[in-house]
């Protein structure tokens, strides 16, 4: 802590202490954000605390997404749980199944009598955290969706028109051929392979990733990642990997470094990559919608989100829950939400916030920032594209990562790898069903 921040901190506690004496209701909020995102979160909390004097939200950082979820779970077991826990989207089924540990948002709003209009939220975003019968379980906080990032300079250097149409994977394939011929060492790379190239691929082509509406319909779901659409896509990617046109950099967002350094021409990555790419890239870039296979009927449907939502945990007093509800409503208010959307590149959770951003002329000043919003909201989500709700999903992603690596390395065909991913993933789904049945 530098002397300056220490000073601010001391001043802050000095200001806060008299308030504490008047017994404000304290609401604990555990999250996984650091850096710029952590600052923005702290800013939101501070302005909520300043906006009223009944409640005070106390935020604390608990590590990365997995660590934060673990901290929340361990705290719950010890009876020390916070009021609000930020949980990444793959933890949704785990949280949802934990009846008795969570207070669903619709329930929270009802019992505290807070204002709540579920229709104000963007369906494609909130749907991920909503039951099949339309009840919201957790409040979407930071949501993004995958898009295609293009290094325009790299295309020009290879003698390709930087405005070339990259709407479909066939067109991308042609451009990759040209890039490879021109000697590019990294025509395309990706981050989060399972999320983009299987989970989103499935939703975007309106096919199931898992049976029972991707798990929304019950715990007895099975993976269907080895369908013809997925196999064809992964095989195409595998072939590109063998030909040096798709460079695999790692399971998370390692590929981002290669793209931001200007090495790679195309990059499939979250729309929330905007801040980093904008800050670091020393080349002309633009954002395109995620490509799709034109040969598949019903494509493009809509992509699904990644990110995290806020869960209210069980075991606290009624007036504290009123504070949680007030904070959730504050986060959903148009001004706060529009600012967050513009600052971070995360999707707006309410339609009003998106509208306000458009009216303020933000999308015109920052071209491409609305690609993700359009891609997600043009079509009403179907049963195949609302989102995913699978138990042990973090581990299932690990299995998919392993199997995809076998394809990129040329050890397995796409069909073999995805058949194996399904068989292994289904075992974990059965265990989860057993534990929570």
């Amino acid at each position, binding site marked *: 802590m530098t002397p300056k921040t220490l000073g601010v901190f001391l001043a802050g506690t000095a200001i806060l202490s008299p308030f504490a004496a008047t017994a404000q209701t304290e609401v604990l909020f555990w999250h996984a954000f650091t850096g710029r995102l952590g600052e923005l979160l702290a800013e939101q909390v501070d302005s909520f605390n300043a906006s009223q004097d009944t409640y005070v939200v106390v935020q604390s950082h608990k590590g990365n997404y997995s660590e934060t979820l673990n901290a929340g779970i361990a705290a*719950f077991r010890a009876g020390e749980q916070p009021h609000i826990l930020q949980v990444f989207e793959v933890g949704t089924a785990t949280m949802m*199944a934990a009846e008795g540990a969570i207070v669903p948002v619709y329930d929270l709003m009802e019992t505290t009598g807070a204002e709540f209009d579920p229709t104000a939220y963007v369906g494609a975003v909130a749907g991920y955290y909503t039951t099949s019968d339309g009840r919201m379980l957790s409040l979407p906080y930071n949501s993004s969706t995958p898009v295609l990032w293009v290094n325009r300079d790299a295309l020009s250097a290879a003698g390709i028109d930087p405005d070339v149409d990259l709407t479909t994977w066939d067109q991308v394939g042609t451009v990759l051929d040209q890039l490879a011929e021109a000697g590019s060492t990294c025509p395309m790379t990706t981050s989060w392979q399972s999320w983009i190239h299987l989970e989103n691929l499935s939703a975007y082509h309106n096919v199931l990733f898992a049976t029972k509406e991707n798990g929304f319909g019950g715990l007895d779901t099975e993976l269907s990642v080895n369908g013809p659409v997925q196999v064809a896509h992964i095989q195409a990617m595998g072939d590109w990997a063998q030909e040096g046109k798709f460079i695999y950099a790692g399971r998370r967002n390692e590929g981002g*470094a290669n793209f931001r350094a200007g090495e790679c021409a195309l990059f499939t990555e979250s729309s929330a990559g905007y801040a980093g790419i904008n800050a670091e890239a020393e080349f002309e870039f633009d954002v395109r919608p995620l490509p799709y296979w034109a040969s598949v009927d019903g494509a493009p449907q809509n992509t699904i989100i990644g990110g995290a939502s806020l869960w209210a945990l069980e075991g606290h007093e009624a007036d504290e829950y009123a504070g949680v509800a007030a904070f959730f409503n504050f986060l959903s208010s148009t001004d706060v939400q529009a600012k967050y959307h513009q600052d971070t590149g995360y999707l707006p959770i309410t339609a009003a916030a998106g509208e306000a951003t458009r009216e303020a002329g933000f999308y015109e000043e920052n071209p491409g920032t609305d690609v993700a919003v359009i891609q997600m909201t043009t079509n009403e989500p179907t049963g195949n594209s609302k989102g995913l709700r699978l138990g*042990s999903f973090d581990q299932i992603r690990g299995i998919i990562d392993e*199997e995809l*690596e076998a394809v*990129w390395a040329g050890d397995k065909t796409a069909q073999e790898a995805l058949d194996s991913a399904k068989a292994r993933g289904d075992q974990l789904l059965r265990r989860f069903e057993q534990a*929570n049945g």
Partner: protein
Amino acid sequence: MDKRVTFKGWLLPLCLIAPQVFISAVFFFYPAGKAIWQSLFIPDPFGLSSQYVGLGNFEFLLSDPFYRQSFITTAIFSTLVTLASMVPALFLAVLADRLIKGAGVYRTLLIWPYAIAPAIAGLLWLFMFNTRVGVVAWYLGKLGYDWNHVLNGGEAMGLVVVASAWGRISYNFLFFFAALQAVPKSVIEAAAIDGARFWRRFFTIVLPLLSPVAFFLLVVNIVYAFFETFGVIHTITAGGPQQSTTILVYKVFSDGFVGQDLGSSAAQSVILLVLVGLLTVIQFKYIEKKVHY
């Protein structure tokens, strides 16, 4: 020739072993018992409900070919880590032992890496071998070798072995160095007068005298490779590519603390406990017979 000293009565000896028993009970028997108990259930993460499955968790694990493969991966990994941390340590200790001037400086320098936490060591090696910005990877590229531990399982294994063994070399060095200093000079000198050259003296006199220390280090290093290396693996490969660096203890960690599957994680700990117990018994029963005290 019985030189055993015996206590009169029971109270004093009981008091003397009580602290050790207490520590073992709190830090070993209680958690181990808890793990065995937990391994019989599939609990939900929040501890709200629990299904008794008997040996179901073990059946689930042992019927999984990937889990069985993990035993082989662990065997390869721990053998390599043990060799890679003991052989260079012995070599360095022998060299440092022959120094007349500046031995203290070398000794201090050689001990430094031990002060670095495994996860940090993992990051350091990861940076050096990063496929895009790594110094070593870059030089290998210059030599025409395309280093890619992200997709190549053998290279990934090599990298985690080196990163795990590196800090350990210092630890082993300390023990070997101390043991070398304890080798009686008179024996060495006698052999030298008889015309034995350095390497002959080393293999026939020094090495047998080092065997108790070497045996101790063997046991300790295998335990280290089994249990304490997951920080390195977590930061460098997270068990990949495919499952080429998923050792048993890493799977315990990732299933339990990432996957929230506490039943399977507990069952794996029990399997690991039995395995290491067996290994130690084998080591003491067979290898120790070749050790001269």
